[in-house]
């Protein structure tokens, strides 16, 4: 983008931001939502899925990329490919299955067919298109860029984005830490998905992913039950003044952030501070019999929640042992897909424990989060006179510091997460509107 062009649109979104506050339109304006799908989800790296979801050649899953239907597949040759799931003929959605294994896709309308790398393979009664017709002009479209970081596949609709590694910035080392626990068995994202629908804007979900302030209040019901039964377990550490704890919020750049609960959760043994779950005793006993108590506990510690909330803007949240994909459907409707994970080559007891552990927070905690998201959406949408939302925690307390890692660290209840990602939001949206103006495209 040229500097002159940027000037012509600079400022269109300024009205949405004040120090420590953001405007309700960000959450409730349907036109702004449409622009986000174009200028934000259409112009940055968006998380699509994990390579282990499609382990075999010809495996595929269908997804959305900022509402655009896409197919994530492993081609017959074994390459990862992302296709825009729209027929180049009249525009029909080609593949209508959620997942499967197929060497190619045939459109249901006029039977144009495509290999799973998107190449047009054939179409009926071709002669009517005349002499100059070439199949290769009718391939399925693909996002301009597709790249993986350690199995996490991202796609960008435009070519003009920084390399994925650069975009991930400070998040890369935390992805590494999340993957490389214990003896670094490969993490598989192929053990079932909980698909939560919430009637709230997608950013309300992203806001919450870095909100270290809400747990003792939003999750009081859960914390109370577990504390009454089991004492000092799980996230009970959140019921003290956590800003004086070793937990922290870290700004990773480009809208990515991290809440690090590991200093509290993994201080001694995460498995020991994990309250019971179905089968805890028998699975532990069998592991200790096979591997000894010390090694058994190490394996269990490494399969208890990671103690990390790693938020990769705009739609990838790594929380505990789960991978979440945030899927905006409408200004007030979002699907949050919670992908569960297992460890390749781990004892079956470890993976069984992981399944039961990964059911805990969703049914005892996420449900309350989702209800609060919907309450926010209702309050913001229904009261037009009250326009501003507060994001000012630790804005003026001077508690932030530049760490030896070069990253900015704040107390764990800080709203730095929101301030950081809204900066990335505004930069992308400004660049997007400038680009549309330059291209003369308007909407």
């Amino acid at each position, binding site marked *: 983008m040229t500097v002159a062009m940027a000037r012509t649109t600079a400022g269109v979104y300024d009205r949405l931001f004040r120090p420590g506050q953001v405007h309700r339109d960000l959450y409730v304006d349907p036109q702004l939502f449409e622009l986000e799908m174009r200028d934000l989800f259409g112009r940055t790296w968006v998380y699509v899925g994990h390579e282990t979801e499609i382990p075999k050649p010809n495996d595929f899953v269908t997804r959305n990329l900022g509402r655009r239907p896409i197919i994530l597949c492993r081609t017959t040759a074994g390459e990862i490919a992302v296709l825009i799931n729209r027929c180049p003929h009249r525009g029909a959605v080609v593949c209508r299955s959620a997942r499967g294994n197929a060497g190619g896709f045939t459109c249901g309308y006029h039977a144009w067919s495509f290999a799973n790398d998107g190449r047009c393979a054939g179409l009926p009664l071709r002669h009517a298109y005349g002499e100059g017709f070439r199949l290769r002009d009718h391939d399925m479209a693909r996002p301009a860029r597709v790249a993986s970081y350690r199995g996490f596949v991202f796609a960008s609709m435009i070519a003009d984005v920084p390399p994925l590694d650069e975009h991930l910035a400070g998040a890369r080392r935390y992805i590494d830490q999340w993957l490389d626990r214990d003896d670094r068995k490969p993490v598989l994202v192929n053990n*079932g*998905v909980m698909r939560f629908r919430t009637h709230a804007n997608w950013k309300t979900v992203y806001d919450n992913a870095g909100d270290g302030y809400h747990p003792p209040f939003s999750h009081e019901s859960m914390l109370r039950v577990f504390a009454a*039964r089991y004492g000092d377990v799980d996230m009970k550490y959140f019921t003290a003044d956590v800003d004086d704890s070793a937990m922290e919020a870290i700004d990773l750049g480009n809208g990515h952030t991290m809440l690090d609960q590991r200093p509290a959760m993994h201080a001694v043994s995460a498995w020991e501070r994990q309250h019971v779950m179905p089968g805890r005793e028998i*699975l532990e006993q069998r592991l200790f019999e096979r591997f000894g108590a010390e090694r058994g506990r190490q394996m269990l510690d490494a399969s208890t929640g990671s103690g990390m909330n790693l938020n990769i803007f705009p739609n990838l949240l790594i929380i505990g042992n789960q991978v979440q994909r945030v899927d905006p459907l409408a200004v007030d409707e979002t699907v949050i897909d919670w992908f*569960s994970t297992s460890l390749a080559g781990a004892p079956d*007891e470890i993976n069984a424990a992981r399944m*039961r552990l990964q059911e805990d927070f*969703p049914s005892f905690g996420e449900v309350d989060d989702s209800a609060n998201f919907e309450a926010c959406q209702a309050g913001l949408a229904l009261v037009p006179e009250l326009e501003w939302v507060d994001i000012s925690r630790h804005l003026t307390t001077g508690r932030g510091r530049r760490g030896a890692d070069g990253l900015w660290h704040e107390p764990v209840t800080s709203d730095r997460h929101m301030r950081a990602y809204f900066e990335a939001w505004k930069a992308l949206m400004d660049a997007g509107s400038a680009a549309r103006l330059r291209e003369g495209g308007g909407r």
Partner: protein
Amino acid sequence: MNAHPAVPFSLDHYAALHDLVRSWRNLGEIPEERLPAPADGAACARLLAAEARLLDAGRLADWLALFTADCAYWLPTDVTGEDPAKFVAWEFNDRRRLEERVERLATGRAYSQAPPTRTVHLLSGLEMLTDGPDGMQVLANFLIQTNFAGRVGQRAGWTGYLLRRQHGRWRIALKRINLFDADLPQDNNSFTL
């Protein structure tokens, strides 16, 4: 299933549950020799009617009393009968986690159930198969009419029950709630299905 019960929630137990679900998915007509004695069938039907009534009345402590000590309340995420040792469920609760669930809802701080979802549980097409002398498997379609804070909804699917006779009374050892769209986005299911 009852002949050699595995330690609850051990790998053997998961394997047995996986087999049970597979047998339900493959079931044709119920074989003559597994049809229950009329009195047992009627007693089991009464148990399930009482279960639905207690849920709809929000009497969760009384509802819990209908379950065995080694029970499971299971709400899968899949519609393909996957292995519970390898596949995450929406909920897979033993008796302890089921009690915790009920305790959570009773704290007055469970915002997902403020106000509580109102429900009417309808069961239809009950099919029963004996499972040894003191066991009964029951399959039934369900429809749950819901109203959460004014938003009307429905949940539908089929439930597989494993009932066991203990001291002369039928109790629920397994309730597997198979939402017909469990693999698709779900709204607030934090009420008790």
